Each structure stands twice: as structure tokens, then as C-alpha cells.
């Protein structure tokens, strides 16, 4: 396999079907992409993949940069007599983005295509039409004749994701596709690993491709416990609401304005020093970046920051419209701004904001 980079790499990563706990295909792809890049790769029992890049010894600090490999999706919970599949969501999916969507299922004989079906509108009362159907009331139609036919290809517990074509649109700066959360971060890390393969940083750097973020951050917990970093940069995708009918104060962040840096979300209050340091670094390096202007969501940082004696942690997110849908929209230029910012941070004197490590000496 030839190595890819930038948006081509992101496109291939987004095409991989890898919902939470079924990240192995993404991990395999990533391993090939970062091979021969002067890193040491390890995997653990829950599928986390860590690429370790040894520093030059000038600093004793460890930086962990992480992104999760998994994506939101579905797990099959039953097969009806007519061959349609009941399912539950894997991760938080807005019911409004599900109905009528094409999906793919990792069946026992290979990948199956399907469509999420609902009770037809003409059979629903006026009151029912005002409500969105939860996943429990929807089914996946895989074109099976009946239950027996469906069972030949699908079992309860099989998983799936949205089916979506990665597409450039608008003025060529806009992209949409499934799984941008968080193949964006994965692609970025692969790029940085490959682009810096002949450079040695002052710090030991761990690039952590984590599992199971969408179902409770457990991959990141295990990884950060093992690495015990001094500093963690969690690469993420953040929902934005930059729509005309949303008050500006609730719009979270804006596309094409660079990565959004969080001061707080539902899982973490980030340190003031690192929040300011990153925005200052971006400004000094003439890289676009913005503060995430809304407290919402949560991510791997929720566990990472509280590991051990605490980890100085930042969440750096690409602004994403329609997050957790089949058509997550980002601006291409935000990819390059984020990459430039991460590189600038690794090359900076960020260790100055970390208190001297005292564990063991106390």
C-alpha cells in the first residue's frame, strides 16, 4: 500500500468501517501508513495503537497526542420475522439524522448494504409526525425476504455504520463524509508522524490512536494510564451550530477559522495555562485558531486529564457541522491549520507550564 497524506489520507480513513469496539480495520490501515517512520508501535488488548517517538533527552516530559479511531454506528439487536433488523445506536446519534439513511453492516459473510426504515408517514398520526422516532422504533432493511434469509448473513451483535461518500463541495474548501469524528485526528497524526520522521523532538512523543471513545472513553483511559503523560493534546471534532437561526453566542465555533480550543466541556475543565498557551502559540505562529465558545460535549480528555497526579490536557477540535451524522462537514483549510498548530506546540517550550513531577518523591 502506498502512503497517503493530507485530504487523500483522510478520505481513505473515513471510508473504513470501524464503529466502537470494532476498530481493527482502522488500526491496520494506520499501521501501514506510519510504517518505517522512526517510531515504535505497540498495541494493547483493547485495540489501542500507540506510536512512540523517542525524544532527544533535552526534556524529561512526555507528550501524548491522541485521537480516537472509532466512529458512531449501530449494533444489531434482533431480527424481525420479515427480515428487518432492529438496532441500537453506538454512540450519540441525533434521531433526526437517521431515517432513510443508507448504512453498511459488518455481516458474517461480508459487508451488507441496508437502509434505515421507519413507519411511513401516511400511517402516522398528526401527533406522531411531530416526533422523531427513536432507534428502537426503526429498522434496518437489508433486502432480506424473511428472518431465515436475513439470518444467513447477519447475527445479533453485528455492527454497522452510516454509508457515505467522502465528497468535496462548495468552493472546493468544504468536505463531507462519515467518521470525520475522529479520523480527522487519526489522519493528522499519521501525517505528522510521516512528516517528522527525520526530526527528533525535545520531548518523548506518544501518538495514541484510541478505541471506544464514542461509548465512554475507555480506550483513552487505558492508554493514558499506561503512558502517564505530562501533557496531552486530544485531537477531536466538535459540533458547531453556525446556522443563520442560531444566536451567535450559541454557535460554538466557525469553519475555516482554525481548530477550536476548549476551556471547558461536559467532561473536563481545562487548565488556564495550556488554553492560553495554545492560543498564544497559534497567534505567534500566524496559525488560525479559535476558542470554543460554548460548553458542550465531552471526549477522551475527560479521563486523560484525571489520570495519576493529573495531566495538563488540551482538547483541540476541528469545527464540524452535523457531527455524528452520515455527512459531517468540515473546511479543508482547518485540517492544515490544525496540523500546523500541533507541530508548533510540539516544537515549543510547552513544558514550562507543567509543574515539576513529584510523584514518588512526595
Amino acid at each position, binding site marked *: 500500500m502506498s502512503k497517503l497524506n493530507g485530504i487523500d489520507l483522510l478520505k481513505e480513513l473515513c471510508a473504513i468501517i470501524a464503529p466502537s469496539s470494532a476498530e481493527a480495520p482502522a488500526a491496520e490501515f494506520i499501521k501501514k501508513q506510519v510504517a518505517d517512520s522512526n517510531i515504535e508501535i505497540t498495541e494493547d488488548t483493547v485495540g489501542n495503537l500507540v506510536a512512540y517517538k523517542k525524544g532527544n533527552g533535552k526534556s524529561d516530559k512526555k507528550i501524548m497526542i491522541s485521537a480516537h479511531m472509532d466512529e458512531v454506528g449501530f449494533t444489531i439487536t434482533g431480527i424481525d420475522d420479515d427480515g428487518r433488523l432492529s438496532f441500537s445506536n453506538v454512540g450519540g446519534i441525533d434521531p433526526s439524522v437517521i431515517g432513510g439513511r443508507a448504512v453498511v453492516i459488518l455481516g458474517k459473510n461480508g459487508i451488507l448494504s441496508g437502509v434505515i426504515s421507519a413507519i411511513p408517514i401516511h400511517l402516522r398520526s398528526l401527533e406522531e409526525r411531530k416526533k422523531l422516532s427513536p432507534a428502537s422504533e426503526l429498522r434496518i432493511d437489508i433486502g432480506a425476504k424473511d428472518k431465515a434469509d436475513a439470518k444467513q448473513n447477519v447475527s445479533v451483535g453485528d455492527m454497522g455504520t452510516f454509508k457515505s461518500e467522502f465528497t468535496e463541495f462548495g468552493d472546493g474548501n468544504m468536505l463531507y463524509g462519515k467518521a470525520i469524528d475522529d479520523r480527522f485526528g487519526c489522519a493528522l497524526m499519521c501525517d505528522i508522524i510521516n512528516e517528522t520522521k527525520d526530526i527528533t523532538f525535545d520531548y518523548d512523543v506518544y501518538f495514541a490512536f484510541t478505541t471506544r471513545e464514542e461509548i465512554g472513553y475507555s480506550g483513552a483511559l487505558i492508554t493514558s494510564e499506561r503512558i502517564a503523560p*505530562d501533557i496531552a493534546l486530544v485531537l477531536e471534532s466538535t459540533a458547531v451550530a453556525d446556522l443563520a437561526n442560531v444566536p451567535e453566542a450559541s454557535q460554538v465555533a466557525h469553519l475555516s477559522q482554525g481548530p477550536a480550543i476548549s476551556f471547558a466541556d461536559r467532561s473536563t475543565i481545562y487548565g488556564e495555562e495550556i488554553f492560553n498557551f495554545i492560543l498564544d502559540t497559534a497567534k505567534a505562529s500566524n496559525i488560525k485558531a479559535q476558542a470554543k465558545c460554548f460548553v458542550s460535549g465531552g471526549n477522551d480528555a475527560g479521563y486523560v486529564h484525571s489520570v495519576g497526579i493529573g495531566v495538563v490536557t488540551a482538547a483541540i477540535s476541528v469545527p464540524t457541522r452535523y457531527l455524528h451524522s452520515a455527512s459531517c462537514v468540515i473546511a479543508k483549510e482547518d485540517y492544515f491549520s490544525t496540523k500546523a498548530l500541533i507541530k508548533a506546540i510540539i516544537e515549543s517550550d510547552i513544558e514550562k507550564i507543567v509543574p515539576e513531577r513529584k510523584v514518588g518523591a512526595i
Partner: protein
Amino acid sequence: MIELIRCLASATAVSGREKEICEIIKGEFPALFETFYLPSGDLIVKLPGNRKNAKKIMISTNIDVRGFFVTFIENDGKIRLALSDSELDFSKYIGDTLVSNNKIEAKLLSEKDASPRLSEIYAEVENSNIDSFKPGDVFSLKSEITEENGRISGLNTASRAVIYAMIASAKEVSHTHDIYFVFNSCGIPGGRGAKSSTYAIRPDIAVSLRTLESKESCSVLLARDGMSLSSIDFFDKAISCAANSSVDIALSATTTGTRDAWSISTTQTGVPTISLALPCLDLGEKSESVSKDTVSEFSKIITAIAENILN
């Protein structure tokens, strides 16, 4: 007492933004005390023991208070806010004064008279100050500390009085064992700091200090503190420590409060933990108050436990 409590209450201490109050606390300790910070933002003051094979006693409290994060500054000067903790009932503070981390006062206002949503409230500052703010800044509710009839009153008085009592105890206590006075960050949103400190210190016994809405006039030893059950052996020893020091103590249990005790007791292989509370009235209100005598007694029982619980 009131001067230090007032000083502590005026410092920024919104969860995750505790540096200012930490520096005030640190300044209370002469150079002979070993003080250091953790990446979590906790401040630890260590008093090394003078006996061979000294054990480790951790005495901790959370130092954070509820407040607001600045999320957005509108063109008309309205500063939009998020809560540092979802349990902050902001509606009862509409019209009150806020103080920012850069010490600029603001009014908490609402676009709606009754039951405003978070998106409908904002902070208003003088126009000349608006450029001083950016997303990520914080506002605290202004606390006016007063003293009357032997009681100290004002928002956050009780938790600031606990900090005062710890500082007073640290200056008095004789330490044959290693004693760690720990001022934890982010106690309100989940006990994060308490976990980090416990991990760093790995104590043999921990005493989690907190506040409690109670009419008791003496310190309250808690058999249960939220999800944490006090260590039975050390619970009994704490009662003995109080009796031997002629300090009154009441016994109780509660399911409310921060998760500090639970965080401490469940870190790594577990830590025997007891919870001791300073009783107060009107907890969380502007009229929150503590008895000065009870605060002094609270400091004494901390000292008694620190000196004797491992003997």
C-alpha cells in the same frame, strides 16, 4: 480569622481556576513548609514526620467554588456565560454582583423576568472594560463577608472557613508522622483534585474536610459522606482523638456534597478515609454562616486527629 476568610472569599476559586486562592494559601506558610503544586492544580503542604518509618496522613479539602465561564462577548457588550457546575442555580443570583478573574465587577442580568434559561442570562460590565474579557475567563459571585454575634456570614463562608481551619492547624500541629495538608482543585465537578493528590501522596489514612448544613455547634464526624463510607476503625479513633482533646464532636451521615471522600477512598488500592464536616447555616446562600467558636474547635479537632489517629 475574619481577615483571612475575607481574603480567601475575595480570591478567584472557580473550579479549574484556583491559582489565585492557592497562592494566598501558600503565602500563609513560612518557608520551612514544603509546598508544591500538582498538574491537576492541587496545592500540597507537607510537614515531614520526625520518627522512623513515619506514616502518611493526608488532610484535604476542596478549595473551589461555583461560578461562571465567559463563553462569548456580543457586539452590544453582553457577556454570555456557562456554568462551572450544572448544579449552580443561577436564577437566584440575577441582579447580583459578579467579580471576574481580572477583578472587574459585573452585574448578572437576564433577558427574561422569570425562570431564565442559561442562554438568556449575561454579565454586564462598563463599556470601557469590555475589551478585557475573552472566552475562558471566569466570574465568581461576589461574597460580602460580615461578622455579627460571633458568626461570620457571606457566600462561601463555610468552605473558606474550612481552609482557614486547615491553615491554623498546620501551623500548630506537631508531626511525628508525615502530614500532608492538601488544597484540592475541582472538588465540585467530581473530586478530580482529591484523586490526583491521593495518587501522588499514597497516604495511609485520609481525612476529608467539608461543610455541612447543620445546626450543630461542634464539628461533625460523618459515618457516610456521599458514596463514601468512613473507615470504621479510624472513625472510632477520631472519636477518641476528640474526647482526649476535650473537643466536642457530633456524629452524622449525609448523601450530599462533593465527591472528594469517594475519590480519595477509591484511588488505586484504596485509602481508609474519614470525613469531618464544619457545620454551617444557609449553605450555598448569601446568608451562609459559621460560628467563630466552631471554626476554632474545628481547627483543634483537625490537629488532634492529625497528631493522634495513627498512634
